[in-house]
């Protein structure tokens, strides 16, 4: 019995996006209804898929062509978990967008669903060239979303963002071409089998291909030295778009974890070791750079952007470890980071609108309307981002620190994570006190300030409540991520699900 639900997270946004194009331009309400209904359905399906994924990896052969000749879509715990995170963030972003952001430019909802199509496809695909194609789909949509609203800033940062990602895409193609040239396959499970059995003379090319691939993923997840595009693109983008972008950086992290545990597992051609040697310092520097960025931010958007960079550093510091505990902690932190990243960008949008002319700049100004609600939410977001109890940032960091205990990089990782925690704390405290406490000293509120819609506050509050739930149910969530990590490390399960014949290497 073929499980057709696996392909639905890819097909549904595609159909919705096309349907949205056909809706009359004036009819804002119908677009909103279709868009929200589709995201809700996607969320429901993601929950159902998480349930199905408990039985182990399942492959769906598109067009019933057997792997490795046809294209496969694979559901396992990791992809189901990522789908869950993506649909939760998408729901929050779309609910925020329908308050008004979606009317500031054409085709917001269409682009939004194309982006979801790319994100979901990237999480589900079991084929490395399709990973490239889905990356391109999500990028094309994200170029559109960065530009949503228009203006010189968005045009210029959109150009920079597009240029950086096009270069990354070119490198991706070089890497895919190299891997195909040596192994003769693009199917990830088949690739895993063939990479392990590769003769030694091809190892040099394989290493080049593998490392080029990781450069691409590093660009996606804003790893130092490829992190420069993020603050610029995320600062200029429309708030609901940047909220969804919180998942975008995680696509890079997902791809690193997937490739690391599946294709290049077992230190084939020494790739795993090399990668770990590169990834750990790069993640540590990313975390430090993010923390320094937070400390030096002159605006709340910069603060939010650099704290995203810092959280990617934390995540990859754990994910580089490759033990079950590290991966599990990294996945927990990934869920947390999605939620809090989205919450922070939406909140900054609300606060900046309430402050009028100074907008998001970290300068004293008359109190924001609804200062208690916004200030309270900022306080909670800051606590979660920095990793203070009781929100999920704390649980995530404890899990990561615990997971890294006893590894070779433990001293470095502990020092960096704990040290940057202080920097982040100072950065957030400084920003919060400037925006919310020094407020009374300024003369008068500029007349462009406007109170935030209550619904918008509710969306942010729901995301923050999500991190609280993630923290309260920390034990259960960590058990789920433990199971995910265990499944990832037993890559035979995945290979057997995709290509039963391929699991024994040919002689």
């Amino acid at each position: 019995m073929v499980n057709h639900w696996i392909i639905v997270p890819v097909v549904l946004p595609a159909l919705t996006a096309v349907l949205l194009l056909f809706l009359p331009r004036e009819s804002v309400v119908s677009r909103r209804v279709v868009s929200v209904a589709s995201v809700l359905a996607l969320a429901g399906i993601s929950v159902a898929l998480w349930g199905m994924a408990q039985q182990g990896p399942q492959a769906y052969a598109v067009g019933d062509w057997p792997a490795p000749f046809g294209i496969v879509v694979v559901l396992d715990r990791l992809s189901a978990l990522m789908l869950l995170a993506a649909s939760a963030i998408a729901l929050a972003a779309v609910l925020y967008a329908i308050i008004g952001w979606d009317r500031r430019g054409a085709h917001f909802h269409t682009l939004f669903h194309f982006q979801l199509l790319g994100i979901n496809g990237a999480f589900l695909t079991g084929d490395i060239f399709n990973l490239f194609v889905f990356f391109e789909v999500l990028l094309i949509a994200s170029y559109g979303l960065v530009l949503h609203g228009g203006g010189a800033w968005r045009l210029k940062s959109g150009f920079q963002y597009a240029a950086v990602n096009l270069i990354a895409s070119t490198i991706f193609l070089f890497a895919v071409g190299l891997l195909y040239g040596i192994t003769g396959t693009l199917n990830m499970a088949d690739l895993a089998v063939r990479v392990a059995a590769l003769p030694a003379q091809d190892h040099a090319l394989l290493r080049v291909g593998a490392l080029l691939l990781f450069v691409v993923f590093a660009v996606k997840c804003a790893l130092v030295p490829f992190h420069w595009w993020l603050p610029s693109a995320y600062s200029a983008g429309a708030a609901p778009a940047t909220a969804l972008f919180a998942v975008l950086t995680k696509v890079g992290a997902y791809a690193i974890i997937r490739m690391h545990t599946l294709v290049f597992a077992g230190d084939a051609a020494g790739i795993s070791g090399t990668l770990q040697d590169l990834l750990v310092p790069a993640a540590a520097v990313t975390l430090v750079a993010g923390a320094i960025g937070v400390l030096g931010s002159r605006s709340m958007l910069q603060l939010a952007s650099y704290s995203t960079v810092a959280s990617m550093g934390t995540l990859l510091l754990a994910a580089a470890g490759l033990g079950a505990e590290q991966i599990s902690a990294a996945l927990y932190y990934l869920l947390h980071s999605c939620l809090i990243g989205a919450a922070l960008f939406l909140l900054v949008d609300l606060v900046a609108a309430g402050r009028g002319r100074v907008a998001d700049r970290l300068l004293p100004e008359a109190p924001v309307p609804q200062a208690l609600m916004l200030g309270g939410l900022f306080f909670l977001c800051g606590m979660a981002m920095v990793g203070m109890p009781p929100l999920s940032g704390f649980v995530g960091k404890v899990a990561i620190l615990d997971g890294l205990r006893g590894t070779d990089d433990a001293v470095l990782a502990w020092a960096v994570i704990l040290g940057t925690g202080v920097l982040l704390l100072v950065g957030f405290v400084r920003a919060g006190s400037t925006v919310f406490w020094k407020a009374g000293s300024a003369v008068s509120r500029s007349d462009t300030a406007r109170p935030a819609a209550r619904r918008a506050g509710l969306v942010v509050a729901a995301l923050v409540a999500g991190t609280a739930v993630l923290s309260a149910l920390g034990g259960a969530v960590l058990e789920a991520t433990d199971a995910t990590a265990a499944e990832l490390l037993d890559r035979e399960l995945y290979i057997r699900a995709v290509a039963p014949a391929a699991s024994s290497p040919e002689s």
Partner: protein
Amino acid sequence: MEMLVASAIGILTGAGVYLVLRRRTLTVVVGLTLLSYGVNLFLFAMGRLTIDRPPVLTDGGAPYSDPLPQALVLTAIVISFGMTALVVVLALRGFLDTGTDDSAIREADMVRGFGPRHLGTEARKD
């Protein structure tokens, strides 16, 4: 032939990288195009360079030309074509809106609207 193809890929990629590192947007666009030409040739060559061979496997194990990279190149060409069109539009709009093709973001450009509510102020700039 190997030498010719390899040096063509190298020159295209090298020129592309040089142009991409320039500061002006339109040069960057040309650089991106050259890079995508380079990578398309590279992908094509990954199916091994063969002449006059059928793109199908035969029972006798006769030499064949791998059709898969050609399909990949086709996909890559379509994607890079669309992407190039997009960045050309971005570069042009940037030039027309700001009067310069400098890709750097100036302090004066950093103006944007905030807030979930649509008040019609931002849309009018379009």
